[in-house]
């Protein structure tokens, strides 16, 4: 066996161009397909991340004007939802994982000599979870105690933090909101967000909804955020929510304008579909690349065997058995495939590593899958093997005399 490897090594060294071309073919195929799929995966992840920046499969609801008469009440009536309506819906709605009211207004914030007009929302603790508001290191989101005691605590967006405090630490600092002192308890960890309904989270301030109501005297919510239990159809949850609200507010459960929804889970469905078609597209291109690469590799193999028929003849005349010739050939192909695949994988990883930072936000970080590289290289290897195997067997079956004269 050692002798076989020695022979293979010698043959590969002696045939540098041929070895190079075969390895190159496999490297090329592996790089092309690995990168293709790496970018596909990266893009998918980034799109999900961007979309999830708004929230993790949430439904946003706004009360509006009734559009149909109901129980003797005319249409065009304004629907106002209070905290009690939200509590009622929390109990009555099927398939609901969490719900939070949101009160919001633009208020004046003063810190030191800085004065800013900021969008402030009064929310409950589950809001942070649903809207993917993750506190940066050392901070926290609004919690239940804040709610219970109407604490004047605030969670601020990372951009707002920069505007107010610059590079200084924000946690524990006091800012004045409409004249009342609030303590910063958390700063938003930077996140990607490609959609919003009232300004980006990075420039907002979140305070407990109980405090908000006490501070402003506001009784009615601006909107609410609900999250269906994973796997539940969001349509059923929306219908159920509307039914629960309509009971107390006396509007038709069919009235889509009295209570309107933005279903972000729709977007996820769309992305899944989009990515499916996108990946199919990439897959087709990948297959074509693989075929082209395969043809290249098989061509080289074919030429190799033709070129080596004489050599095979000589070896057989000197007493080589058919098996030893085939073994050498097969091992050679495997080594070439292995080297080609490894180099291709390394190149793909290097390209991804040097991928420009600025582009990541749009197309995502490409991620090379070792499995894909392995499969690609093996596929090309098998093509090469099959393409080379039959001519090689043919040659080793020839009479040595005939093979030598070719």
């Amino acid at each position, binding site marked *: 066996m050692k002798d076989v490897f020695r022979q293979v090594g010698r043959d590969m060294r002696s045939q540098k161009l041929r070895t190079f071309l075969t390895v190159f073919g496999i490297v090329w195929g592996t790089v092309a397909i690995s990168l293709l799929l790496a970018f596909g995966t990266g893009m998918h992840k980034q799109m999900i991340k961007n979309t999830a920046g708004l929230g993790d499969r949430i439904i946003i609801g706004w009360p509006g004007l009734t559009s149909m008469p109901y129980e003797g009440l005319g249409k065009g009536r304004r629907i106002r939802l209070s905290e009690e309506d939200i509590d009622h819906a929390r109990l009555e709605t099927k398939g609901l994982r969490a719900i939070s009211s949101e009160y919001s207004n633009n208020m004046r914030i003063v810190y030191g000599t800085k004065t800013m007009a900021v969008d402030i929302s009064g929310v409950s603790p589950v809001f942070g979870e649903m809207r993917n508001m993750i506190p940066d290191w050392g901070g926290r989101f609004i919690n239940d105690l804040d709610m219970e005691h109407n604490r004047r605590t605030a969670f601020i967006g990372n951009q707002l933090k920069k505007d107010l405090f610059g590079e200084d630490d924000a946690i524990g600092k006091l800012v004045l909101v409409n004249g009342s002192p609030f303590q910063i308890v958390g700063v938003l960890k930077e996140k990607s967000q490609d959609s919003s309904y009232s300004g980006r989270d990075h420039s907002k301030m979140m305070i407990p909804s109980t405090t908000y109501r006490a501070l402003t005297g506001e009784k009615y919510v601006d909107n609410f955020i609900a999250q269906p239990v994973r796997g539940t159809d969001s349509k059923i949850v929306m219908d159920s929510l509307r039914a629960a609200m309509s009971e107390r507010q006396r509007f038709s459960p069919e009235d889509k304008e009295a209570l309107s929804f933005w279903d972000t889970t729709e977007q996820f469905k769309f992305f899944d579909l989009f990515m499916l078609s996108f990946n199919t597209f990439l897959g087709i291109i990948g297959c074509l690349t693989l075929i082209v690469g395969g043809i290249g590799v098989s061509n080289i193999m074919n030429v190799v065997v033709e070129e080596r028929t004489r050599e095979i003849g*000589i070896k057989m005349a000197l*007493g080589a*058995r058919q098996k030893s010739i085939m073994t050498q050939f097969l091992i050679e192909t495997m080594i070439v495939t292995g080297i080609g695949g490894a180099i291709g994988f390394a190149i793909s990883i290097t390209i991804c590593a040097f991928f420009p930072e600025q582009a990541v936000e749009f197309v995502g970080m490409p991620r090379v899958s070792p499995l894909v590289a392995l499969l690609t290289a093996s596929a090309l290897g098998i093509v090469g093997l099959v393409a080379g195997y039959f001519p090689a067997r043919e040659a080793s079956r020839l009479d040595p*005399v005939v093979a*030598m004269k070719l």
Partner: protein
Amino acid sequence: MSLGLTKTKTNGVPAASNGSSIIHMDAIRKVYDTGKVKVEALKGIDLAIGNGEFVAIVGPSGSGKSTLMNLIGCLDTPTDGRYELAGEHVSDLTRDQLADIRNRRVGFIFQNFNLLPHISASENVEMPMLFGGLPVRERRERARTLLEAVGLGDRTEHKPTELSGGQMQRVAIARALAMEPAILLADEPTGNLDSSSGGDIMTLFNDLWNQGRTLVIITHDQALATRASRIVEIHDGRITRDERQ
């Protein structure tokens, strides 16, 4: 040129069954079936070659002498007849068995050398020993000894392309001797060489014969043929002359 080689058997070659003859052919026929046409290249050859003989096989092109050479060297099998090489029946062996026979019993020397171009002279000489399963150290040593014996001790690491025709043929002879074959088989060994290198090669053959080796040489070269101890002439697939001189 003196060859400092002693004949050491690396494998137990059994003594020929019928007296001292190494090659024993009985009514050998070879028919090439090309589909439409059947060509009878050999029409019944009876030939016995004894141990230590130096036989030149001569004849015009197409007479069947190359076919005979292929049969003797087990590169091909006869259509009909019995062939014994060094006491072994080889008429009906498998391809792999024939490969083993070629490896152990026959040393080939071709007109166009048939060296592998990309490897060194030494590695070329090692090739049959590799197939014969000799350990690497022994192969190296023996290749060196053999190359020194044919006067190429200073060319062991040269590739065939860096050698002259005469030198290449000497590498081929060293390779043919690698497995201590019972018989050396040469097909027009001087055909591709100028007369001076050809002369060297002929001298080398003479030396090998003087050491007691059995040589069968197919040749057009009258000068080479006259050095042989026996001349077999083939015409149209039959032996027409068989003389010892």
